[in-house]
C-alpha cells in the first residue's frame, strides 16, 4: 500500500506508464515501437532535457523519516537516472536534498545533505562520473507539498535531480 501510494504520487512513474501505454497502442498500427524512436518522448519532452528527465525517467526519490537510505522503490528510479545520464553524457546535474518540516532547522539541512550524498553515491555506483554531479541541501526550506500530515511530509523528504542550468 505504502509503495503504491508513493508510486502514484511520483509524476515520473505516471509519465512512464503513459509512455508504455502509448507504445503498446502504436505497436498495433505497425508504427515505430516507442516514442523514443521518433526522436521525441510521448509527452513531447526534448530528449536530454529536464522535462525528459522529470516525465520519462523520474527526477526525484523519496525517503523515510530521518533516513537517507535509498528505498527499494527509489532504486529503480535511480537506475533509470543513471542510464539517462550515461546516455546524455554531456549533461551535468545537481542533486537537491530536502527534508520534511517535522525536524529542526540545522538537523534538516544536514539530513538533506546526507540524502543528496546518498543519491549521488548511488548514481556514481551505476557508472555516472562523480564530477558530473553536484549536491546541495535545502533542509526543510523548500517543501513542495504543504499540509500538516504524513501525505505531505512523505513528498517533501526527497532528493531531486536537476539538470544544470535547468533550475528546480
Amino acid at each position, binding site marked *: 500500500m505504502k509503495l503504491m501510494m508513493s508510486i502514484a504520487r511520483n509524476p515520473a512513474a505516471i509519465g512512464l506508464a503513459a509512455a508504455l501505454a502509448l507504445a503498446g497502442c502504436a505497436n498495433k498500427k505497425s508504427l515505430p515501437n516507442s516514442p523514443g524512436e521518433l526522436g521525441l518522448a510521448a509527452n513531447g519532452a526534448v530528449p536530454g532535457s529536464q522535462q525528459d528527465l522529470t516525465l520519462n525517467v523520474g527526477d526525484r526519490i523519496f525517503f523515510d523519516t530521518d533516513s537517507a537510505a535509498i528505498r527499494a522503490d527509489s532504486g529503480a528510479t535511480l537506475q533509470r537516472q543513471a542510464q539517462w545520464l550515461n546516455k546524455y553524457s554531456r549533461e551535468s546535474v545537481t542533486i537537491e536534498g530536502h527534508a520534511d518540516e517535522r525536524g*529542526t532547522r*540545522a*538537523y534538516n539541512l544536514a539530513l538533506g545533505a*546526507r540524502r*543528496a550524498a546518498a543519491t549521488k553515491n548511488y548514481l556514481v555506483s551505476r557508472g555516472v562520473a562523480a564530477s558530473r554531479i553536484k549536491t546541495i541541501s535545502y533542509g526543510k*526550506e523548500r517543501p513542495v507539498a*504543504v499540509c500538516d500530515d504524513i501525505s505531505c511530509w512523505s513528498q517533501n523528504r526527497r532528493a531531486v535531480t536537476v539538470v544544470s542550468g535547468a533550475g528546480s
Partner: protein
Amino acid sequence: MIKNGQTQIMKTLQQAVMACLVACATLLLALVPAKALVEIDINQGNIEPLPMAITDFNSDDGIGTQISDVIADDLRRSGLFAPINKAAFIQKIHNPDVAPRFEDWRVINAQALVVGRVNKETDGRLRVEFRLWDTFAAEQMIGQQFFTQPENWRRVAHIIADAIYEKLTGERGYFDTRVVFVAETGPRDARQKQLAIMDQDGANLRYLTQGDDLVLTPRFSPGRQEVTYMSFADGQPRVYLLQLETGQREIVGNFPGMTFSPRFSPDGQKVIMSLVQDGNANIYTMDLRSRATTRLTNTPAIDTSPSYSPDGRQIVFESDRGGRQQLYVMNADGSNQNRISFGDGSYSTPVWSPRGDLIAFTKQSAGKFSIGVMKPDGSGERILTTGFHNEGPTWAPNGRVLMFFRQPAGAAGPQLHSIDLTGYNEQRVDTPNYASDPAWSPLLE
C-alpha cells in the same frame, strides 16, 4: 574589530553613563539600603506581579509620556510588574526632585513609584532624569540621569527599565537589547526570508537583507556589532559574517562543502559551525583573526548546533551518532564528548545559558515540539512549552527569559514568542510578518 565598529549611539551612551557616574551621586537623596525593601523573588513560578506606578516624566512636549510608556511596557511584559493605570493616580507630580506624598501612592497599592523629567539641553541633547521610590518605606531606591541625542530616547527608556528591574529583582535587566531574526513572507512553498533586526520590544525594525537569497539562523557577536548567519547567496550554502554598521559581509572560511549552524565563541574571536563533507556534518571552528580552522568532531553522524558555555571551556551540540538526535557536551578542544540527554524523543538546537547554569533545547516527542531546559550534566530537565512546533530557543542576556519561534499547524507562518524560565508569562513578540530563528543580543557592558 569591535572597537573600530563602535557606533555613535554607543559612544553617546557610554558618555551618558560616564556623566551619570558623576551626576547620579548628587541626585541621591538617601542612601540606598544594601537590601532593597521592595523586592521580587523571581525564582518562584507564577508570582503575583508587583503593582507599581510609573508616572509620565515631566517634559515640555510628549517625550516624557513616551519614555514612561516604554518603561511601563518593558516592565509589564516581564510578567513581574503590574504598572497601575495612570487614571488611578491621586498625586500629580509637579517636581520630581521633591519626595512624593507616599500615602497617595500607598492607597492605590503602588509599592514602587517612578518619576522623572526630560529637558532639552542647549546643545540639543536630552537630559533624562528619573527616581525610583519605595512607597511603603518612603525611601528613594535609585536616582539617575542620562544625556543622549533625542533619537535615542527609546534606548534611554530601556536602560531606565533595566535599572528598575535590577533594583527590584536583584537580577540583571534585559530590556536594552535587540533581536536579530528571519522575517518571512509568502506562501509556505514559496517563502521569502530576510534577515531583520529590532529592539527586544519590536521597535526600530530594520531589514538587513533584501529577500533575494535564502538566509537562516542569524546569531549576534558578543559585542553586538556583527551577526553570523547562513545564506544561499553563493550557490553553495555558507556561513557569513555581517558587520551591522557598515553592511559589509563576507563568507567565513574557505571550506569545501556546505557550512551552517554558526555561532560566536564567548570572546568573539571564533565562529563555530558545522561543515558537510560527503554527507557527514562535523563541527569546526574558525579563528577570525588567524583564519585557522580546527576540526572538533569526526564521526559519520550529523554533529551540529554547537553552542559554547559562557566561560568558553565547553561546547554543547546535537548529534545522531547514537541513532536519534541527542545533546552532547565536549571540551572546547573537542575532547571528552559525552551524551547528556536521555529522555524520550529527540533533542536538538541546544543553547548554553549566559549564566552557565542551564542548557535550553528543542525536544521532539510524540509528534510535538517543546522548548525545555536542563542542567549541563543533563539532570533537571524541565519542559517550558509544548505544541505542534516550537523550535530554536535563545536566551535573554540575564538567563531568565527565552525567545523561540512557533509554527502553528495550517497555512499561517511562524511567530516569535518569549517565555519566562519558570514556564510562565508566555508572550507573543510582535513582528510585521512571519518570523523565525530569533537570536537575542547580549547587553552592552
